[in-house]
């Protein structure tokens, strides 16, 4: 169950010894506290709940303060749950245990879950990559319009309403996004800093959930197997 909660710090570059220039994201990963251990007897499944980033009690709420106090910790800002394969694995963790970036030691690829940047209300060209209408040929004031959204009256499986899930203008971004199989460039367990290759969702200072990839892209699976 190698997983941890972190915070996006920002991006920079990293040179390998042979001069390759790698774009990296700097992530403050941990330290996390085990705030709850779930087993099939108590909760019906096995999992571990982690908490990250202490905050002043006045900025927290009574339920959170009480919950984290059970683990002997100050109230924490972010909580995430990690499923465990078995009860035994979950029982290997105890309340209040500290988890730092070293839990990712030896891992080559990670998935990073974050909240993407909110883009507000956007049209179909931005949100769904529609092409819009013609620039000329008599098009007037409709250059970025989505075009027809289908008939209301036809009965092609949707009856007298617009088909559900029809791609239209609306809110874009500010949602949970996972990027899979990012290369881990380096792990500094003392400072709890990890570098991953490439970009991760959301703005700097956003909270991230980092876990070892369990489903690799083909090319990366080959690298993993060949190690």
């Amino acid at each position: 169950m190698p997983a941890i909660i972190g915070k996006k710090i920002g991006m920079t570059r990293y040179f390998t010894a042979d001069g390759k220039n790698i774009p990296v994201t700097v992530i403050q990963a941990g330290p996390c506290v085990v705030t709850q251990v779930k087993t099939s007897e108590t909760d019906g499944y096995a999992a571990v709940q982690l908490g990250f980033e202490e905050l002043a009690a006045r900025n927290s709420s009574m339920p959170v303060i009480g919950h984290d106090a059970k683990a002997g910790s100050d109230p924490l800002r972010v909580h995430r749950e990690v499923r465990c394969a078995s009860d035994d694995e979950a029982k290997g963790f105890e309340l209040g245990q500290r988890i730092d970036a070293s839990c990712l030691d030896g891992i080559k690829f990670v998935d990073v879950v974050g909240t993407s940047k909110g883009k507000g209300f956007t049209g179909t060209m931005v949100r769904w990559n529609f092409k819009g209408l013609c620039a000329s040929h008599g098009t007037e004031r409709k250059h970025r319009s989505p075009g027809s959204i289908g008939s209301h009256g036809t009965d092609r499986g949707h009856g007298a309403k617009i088909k559900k899930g029809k791609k239209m203008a609306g809110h874009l971004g500010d949602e949970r996004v996972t990027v899979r199989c990012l290369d881990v460039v380096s792990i500094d367990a003392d400072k709890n800093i990890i570098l991953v290759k490439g970009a991760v969702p959301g703005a700097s200072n956003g909270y991230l959930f980092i876990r070892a990839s369990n489903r690799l892209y083909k090319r990366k699976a080959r690298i993993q197997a060949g190690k």
Partner: protein
Amino acid sequence: MNRSKIIEDVVASQVKPEGTMPQLKVGDTLDVHYKIIEGDKERVQIFQGVLIAQKGRGINKMITVRRIVANEGVERIFPLNSPRVEKVDVLRRAEVRRAKLYYLRDRQGKSRRLREDREGSKAKA
């Protein structure tokens, strides 16, 4: 600790320490010793030209070097902190009045030359 400080610390070991690189100024004529990997062999190529622009700081420091090859202008941008940049030699300093010498791109023949800064007086003043 603020974010930019954390990032600086992360890459601090990769930034070449002060003193290993000469103080560069726009207008300098440079020899950039650049390592090239061909298959499994490695050799050093020297790119000689005029430093026409510097940008970035810390690990992101980049220099743009312009030279004329077979009557054709060639510009290369080097990341100064890359391990591939082995060494930079300053051959000549010039007296220039701009931070970016992009106007050299439009110059031909004699007007392409820069006035040499013999005393280094501008640099000191």
